[in-house]
């Protein structure tokens, strides 16, 4: 009987150690990362978007993606959501009579769906083989198909549902927006911002874009203000000389904004920021805490396995106990 009690005691002790190690996170928690100072991104202002989808077509062309058909006649590229072959789409919100743009009731609005380039991306934390990485300078979340094993943990992990896999290709890849970083060497920035006729999608440094977003939210609805188009500010990035463009800014009427810059706080911040006249949850942007799940997950992992200290200590203890209990040749040695 005493040995059984002994066993239960040890089992209980093990449980407490395990629970204690997990609860210990709170004290040792790794902070959510912040957007790097040179981080590049986009500012999408839904009140300026006219839903022309020039950005969707430009994105397809810039990334060499084939069209996707969802109509019977198969004439137009008609993706219903982002996919392994569609990295950017414009979705629509409609309510009631749809009379007023940017109104929650009896109105309509557009919303851009593409990678937000999180400060602390779940996909990067999840990827077991470092195929998904965050550029330390530009903060762009980059994908390397030569490392990717296609496990799709990034697809599952992303709270925005952004990385997507090409299921119908035996050599399928993960597809997502990389802010057109392959075009930067030619002085081109994100194609979606380059072609946007109203400046609804602006390219630039996240810090500059955040300042611009704050400027807009401080304006009064109905006021006239100047809206830039294309690229905002110098957007300096290493080894990049942006093409010189004429001033494309124009004067427009300020809409009735929600006083919320989406991406400023969400998940610890994202490099792509959004403004809208309709509450963000209504236009398909998830409500998220101001910290990333990557921080929680890595805190647990590093509490348990940091420096392999715990595993080695436990292994030592187990080996010591096993050595006492296992006699060489014990299995058949007694020749019973």
């Amino acid at each position, binding site marked *: 009987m005493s040995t059984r009690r002994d066993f239960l005691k040890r089992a209980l002790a093990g449980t407490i150690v395990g629970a204690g190690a997990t609860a210990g996170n709170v004290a040792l928690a790794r902070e959510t990362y912040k957007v790097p100072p040179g981080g590049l991104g986009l500012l999408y202002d839904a009140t300026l978007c006219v839903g022309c989808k020039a950005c969707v077509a430009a994105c397809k062309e810039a990334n060499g993606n084939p069209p996707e058909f969802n109509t019977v006649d198969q004439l137009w590229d008609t993706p219903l959501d982002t996919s392994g072959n569609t990295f950017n789409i414009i979705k629509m919100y409609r309510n009631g009579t749809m009379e007023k743009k940017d109104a929650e009731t009896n109105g309509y609005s557009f919303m851009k769906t593409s990678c937000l380039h999180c400060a602390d991306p779940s996909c990067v934390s999840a990827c077991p083989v470092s195929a998904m990485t965050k550029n330390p300078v530009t903060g762009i979340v980059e994908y390397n198909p030569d*490392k990717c094993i296609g496990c799709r943990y990034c*697809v599952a992990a992303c709270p925005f549902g952004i990385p997507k896999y090409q299921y119908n290709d035996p050599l399928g890849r993960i597809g997502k927006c990389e802010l057109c970083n392959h075009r930067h060497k030619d002085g081109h920035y994100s194609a979606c911002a380059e072609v946007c006729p109203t400046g609804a999608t602006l390219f630039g440094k996240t810090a500059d874009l955040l300042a611009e977003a704050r400027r807009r939210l401080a304006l009064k609805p109905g006021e006239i203000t100047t809206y830039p188009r294309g690229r905002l500010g110098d957007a300096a990035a290493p080894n990049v000389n942006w093409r010189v463009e004429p001033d494309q800014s124009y004067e427009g009427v300020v809409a009735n904004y929600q006083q919320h810059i989406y991406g400023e706080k969400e998940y610890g911040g994202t490099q792509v920021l959004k403004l809208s006249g309709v509450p963000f949850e209504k236009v398909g942007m998830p409500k998220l805490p101001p910290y990333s799940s*990557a921080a929680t997950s890595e805190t647990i992992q590093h509490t*348990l396995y940091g420096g392999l200290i715990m595993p080695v200590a436990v292994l030592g203890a187990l080996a010591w*106990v096993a050595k006492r209990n*296992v006699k060489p040749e014990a299995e058949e040695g007694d020749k019973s």
Partner: protein
Amino acid sequence: MSTQHHAKPAPVGGPLLNAVTLTAGILIAIMAAILVVRLFYGLGSVTALNDGYPWGIWIVVDVMIGSAFACGGFSVAMLVYIFNKGEYHPLVRPALLASLFGYTLAGVAVIVDLGRWWNVWNMYWPWSANPNSVMFEVAICITLYIIVMWIEFAPTFFEKFGMDAAKRKLSKIMFIIIALGTLLPMMHQSSLGTLWVVLGAQVHPLWQTPLVPLLFLLTAIIMGYAVVLFESCVASSAYRRSIEMNLLTPMAKVMLGLVAAYIVVRFGDLIWRGALGLAFGFSLETVMFWLEMACFFAPFLLIGTEVQRRSPARLFLAGIVIMLGGSLLRLNGFLIGYNTGGAYQYFPSLTEVLVTVGMFSIEVLGYIIITRRFPVLPREEAHA
């Protein structure tokens, strides 16, 4: 301790071709055909996977649940070698064999599911390693554990082929192998649960908790004992052998104690996080949650008393409900309680199910072949 009189393991003998092995063979052939299609036309051609549900039953059932079913070897070895309960020794080899197959096939199932399997070497390439990734840790641990288990099981082959010297050499370092064989499953079985932490609010609060590694670890150990109960009953009836009730009855009590501890942890966590209220109301999630919990309460009704624990039928049933309960925890967290927010739906396709069936058929077939030809199960004395 283990110097008591144990029957030595011996091959069961008998024909390898029978209705069961033939059926398993056919199911394996069907799986092979489906996998050829998958190889040339992509995952989408044979699965119902989509971007809302990038992981289907090949991952959740074959890998998550399959490897938990394969914890018998680890659970029993821990009882025998770490907690020094030598009397359970005859259960080690058969349990280890089932674990060996379970894990090896979980490894195979992962490769089949990988969209870019030819890059899998990156998992072991130091310049690609990402120690922040839960999956990285799981993959390394499972790989090492499969190797460790083959070493643990090697004496069986050494005996069969009369390699006494090799067996004696191995037995000198066996304690390290056994220690590793206990540590590694503790690490990756808990981490299989941690996998869903990074999924954040996409996993329903009834399952999303920072305590999930502990929930997975406890249920993996418990399921290990349940599988031994299940498998001992099946093996004894299929091979018409006597059943090791003198071992299974006390082991069931150990299992019951752990189930009680698990229930305390599970509900304690829900109450502490203030999530228990979400379990009331009617939805697929709440129904599945209570079904999952019912499976952990049922054993107390089935085998709560010593008399009940002496009934093989009751042990068998208790084994099954525990296996089901642990499976539901995994299924619920990864599929039922997982929601990316879009209009995505997932229900496994027939071909997907047939591959999972094929994987389990390999296990059954391998178990039969090895137990009939190699010394795994304790030698039956004349009383059979």
